[in-house]
């Protein structure tokens, strides 16, 4: 159930990382909003900057990174100017994150119970008893049987799927209003993937949290997203409601991505799968114009200048010089 | 190229000390063994009573300290080099055999290393020297026969790594004899590790000899071993601390330069590993 309250509001987010070879413009002027109860999927290929985006929202960027933004608000509070202490108070408390690799995301030296309860006790000043009860409650909610016993177990005693459920429970301990999930199902078996995604969707319905889900898999997007933001080379090239993006993708890159997916019934066995020729451009140094132009079959002269962001009636936006909604055969 | 300051500074210092040692007869103003009982414990030149006749003063038997210092470098360097060579030979052979053949030989060598590590080196060295008699060569032999453990351990793992490389199996299938493979394929590739360990063990040997001589069970007087000089000066410590400070600082400087050079070599020969 999507409400109208904006939980996360990001405008003009830019992240630069200084490397020996120059400044890496990892994230370039992206803007997005997530409402309560809504799932926004950020989709893109490896290296497009989606993970860095999620890390910057949580303030977990590496020391060499510099983040700037015009607007960066969480429930109306300006995070760009908040103190380190304030950010720490919010993290794990009102905004939470789960990561891609459940196998390494948990500390092997402490029990599940300890890791589930430590931040709850810190943020809520709760007693050990209260924290345990809450932990058991959440473990059951994420579908883990014999929850009370699990508390005394160590991470190495659990399977990957179980660990990811524990991670989800851990993220929800303090009742956050925003959950950022960075490729939560990628490292898991295909069957477990579906379970985890289903779990996340159910939890969101029940708890009404805003969710940002990072993925490279359009299948995941189709399953779970309310809104989609397509990222390429550090920019958001298209953004809109999931149904609209899939039904009528506007940006050549989005079209290319969708055409890569084999569709049962339509794609003939032995037929050609779509590909996008070329490679992602380097993110170092000056970048002008459209970053996709070298791979786009519709590239023109205009593509080398600043590209405007178009918006149509349904609220779909895309960053391209072509603003006709009914251009067919594009992006091949 | 990132500046390898450790290597430059360490090697420069080391070369300077080696130079002094080699050219000792020309550099020292006096014979280090000649006593001058009328000029005992003269302080170095920067003290009130000192003079340029003896820039670093004289010891309790009137011997010029600068000369003894320079000749002492010979002893320390000789010890370091010899022990490194002897123990290096023993340890490398054991390590390479263990790493190359594995199995029983590996178990045996590992057992030997564990046993050797369990024994208190200083004690055993002291006892041995006491029984056999103290001299420069006895010290070198004893330390050389005791300090091979680190060589064995490091050469073993280095050999294991190299052995898994393709050029070894290529040589094996070409029918080369094991000895030939060890010498021509394995040895050149484990050489960087060998050199780094050799520098560390040389430094350690120098410190051990100094300790042994300090306790009176190492090099015998009147040889100008720095450790021995410190020991001889112990009773004069209160009034003439420089008798201890000078050889002590020389020891520290030598070890410092060897360690620094070793660190620099390590950085040079194993790129990408920053401590």
């Amino acid at each position, binding site marked *: 159930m999507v409400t109208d309250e904006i939980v996360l509001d990001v405008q003009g987010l830019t992240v630069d990382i200084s490397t020996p070879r120059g400044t890496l413009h990892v994230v370039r002027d992206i803007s997005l909003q997530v409402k309560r109860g809504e799932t926004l999927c950020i989709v893109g290929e490896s290296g497009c900057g989606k993970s860095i985006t999620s890390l910057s929202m949580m303030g977990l960027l590496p020391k060499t990174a510099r983040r700037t933004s015009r607007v960066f608000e969480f429930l109306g509070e300006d995070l760009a100017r908040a103190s380190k202490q304030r950010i720490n108070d919010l993290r794990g408390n009102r905004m939470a994150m789960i990561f891609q690799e459940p196998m390494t995301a948990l500390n092997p030296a402490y029990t599940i119970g300890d890791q589930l309860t430590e931040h709850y006790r810190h943020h809520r000043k709760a007693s050990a008893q209260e924290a345990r009860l809450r932990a058991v409650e959440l473990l059951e909610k994420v579908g883990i049987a014999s929850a009370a016993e699990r508390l005394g177990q160590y991470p190495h005693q659990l399977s990957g799927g179980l660990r990811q459920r524990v991670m989800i429970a851990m993220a929800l301990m303090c009742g956050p209003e925003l959950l950022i999930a960075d490729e939560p199902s990628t490292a898991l078996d295909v069957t477990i993937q579906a379970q985890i995604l289903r779990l996340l969707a159910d939890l969101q319905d029940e708890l009404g949290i805003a969710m940002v889900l990072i993925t490279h898999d359009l299948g995941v997007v189709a399953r779970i997203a309310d809104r989609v933001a397509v990222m390429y080379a550090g920019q958001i090239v298209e953004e809109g409601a999931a149904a609209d993006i899939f039904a009528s993708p506007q940006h050549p890159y989005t079209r290319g991505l969708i055409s890569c997916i084999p569709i049962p019934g339509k794609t003939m066995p032995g037929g050609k799968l779509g590909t996008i020729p070329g490679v992602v451009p380097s993110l170092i140094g000056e970048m002008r114009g459209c970053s996709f132009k070298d791979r786009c079959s519709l590239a023109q002269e205009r593509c080398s200048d600043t590209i405007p962001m178009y918006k149509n009636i349904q609220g779909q936006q895309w960053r391209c010089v072509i603003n006709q909604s009914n251009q067919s055969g594009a992006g091949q | 190229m990132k500046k390898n300051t450790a290597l430059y500074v360490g090697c420069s210092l080391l070369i300077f000390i080696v130079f002094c040692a080699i050219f000792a007869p020309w550099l020292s103003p006096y014979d280090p063994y000649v006593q001058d009982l009328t000029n005992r414990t003269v302080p170095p030149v920067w003290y009130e009573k000192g003079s340029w006749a003896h820039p670093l003063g004289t010891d309790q038997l009137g011997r010029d300290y600068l000369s003894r210092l320079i000749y002492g470098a010979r002893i320390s360097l000789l010890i370091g080099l010899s022990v490194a060579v002897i123990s290096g030979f023993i340890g490398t052979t054991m390590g390479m055999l263990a790493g190359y053949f594995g199995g029983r030989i590996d178990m045996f060598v590992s057992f030997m290393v564990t046993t050797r590590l*369990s024994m208190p080196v200083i*004690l055993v060295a002291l006892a041995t020297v006491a029984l056999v008699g103290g001299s420069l060569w006895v010290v070198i032999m004893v330390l050389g026969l005791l300090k091979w453990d680190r060589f064995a351990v490091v050469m073993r793992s280095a050999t294991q790594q190299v052995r898994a490389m393709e050029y070894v199996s290529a040589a094996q299938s070409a029918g080369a004899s094991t000895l030939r493979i060890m010498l021509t394929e394995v040895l050149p590739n484990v050489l960087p590790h060998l050199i780094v360990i050799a520098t560390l063990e040389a430094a350690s040997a120098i410190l051990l000899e100094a300790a042994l001589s300090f306790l009176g069970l190492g090099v015998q007087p009147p040889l100008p071993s720095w450790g021995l000089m410190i020991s001889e000066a112990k009773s004069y410590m209160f009034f003439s601390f420089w008798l201890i400070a000078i050889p002590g600082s020389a020891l520290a400087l030598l070890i410092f330069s060897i360690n620094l050079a070793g*660190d620099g070599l390590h950085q040079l020969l194993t790129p990408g590993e920053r401590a």
Partner: protein
Amino acid sequence: MLAYITKRLGLAVLVALTVSILAFMLLYLSGDPALAIAGEGARQVDIDMVRKTYGFDQPIIVQFGNWLFKIIQGDLGQSIYFKTEVGKLIFTKLETTLLLALYSLAFALIISVPLGVLAAIYKNSWIDRLCLAVAVVGQAMPNFFFALILIMLFSITWRILPVSGSDTWEHFVMPSIALGYYAAPAFMRLIRAGMIEVLSADYIRTARAKGLPTRSVIFKHALRNAIVPVVALAAVQLGFLLGGSIVIETIFALDGLGYLAYQSIIQKDFPVTQVIVLLLSVIYILLTLASDIANAWLDPRIRVA
């Protein structure tokens, strides 16, 4: 876990046995032990009597067997120089040396852990370089020289610490510093390397994402995982400290095992020397065994298999 312990115990016993053989053989380094005990210029009659008294006329295996057998039963032999039982002699001195070794280890850890953690957190900054510089300088100093400097400063110039004896804890301050400082750089490097590796681990990122305070992230989550190899090294270093105490004890006139060993060597008191070598080796073996077990225990993956 039990299987692991049993295996390690078996190995330890084997090593101890080998060391005992080597310790025993120490006697024969000079050639004829009877001659060495009787002294130079002794008459043949005296030498023969010594030989018979100490059983040197029997085959070596038998001698070794007797010696080992007696030791296992607790009879550590008789000291030639001190004219008392070796066991009693060692027992009175052991406490001093153990105290010295423990204090030295404590000192080494007290300075190396904070420095190592700092160097790791501020990796490649001037703090890091300073810590490494301190480590390199520390390792270049011969311990007896450092001990003399300490005496010069604290006892003679400033007169705040006593030079010799072992009555109060103050007597142990300088010896502990002089013995322990040399072990500190190794610990510091180990902790630094361990912390650097651990701080980049995923579970640290998780801990930060949970909004835990920094000190909790560093000490509870990071250090706990980085400290494991330090425990192993600590046990090994303790063994070295026990063996290396001989120089320090002699300088500070601490009446411990080290000093006893030194005296026994000078006086050619073989029974004592052999037993001390054996004892220190066995202690070292036990320490490494304990550290291996502690290592395994600290890693829940091995403890709760």
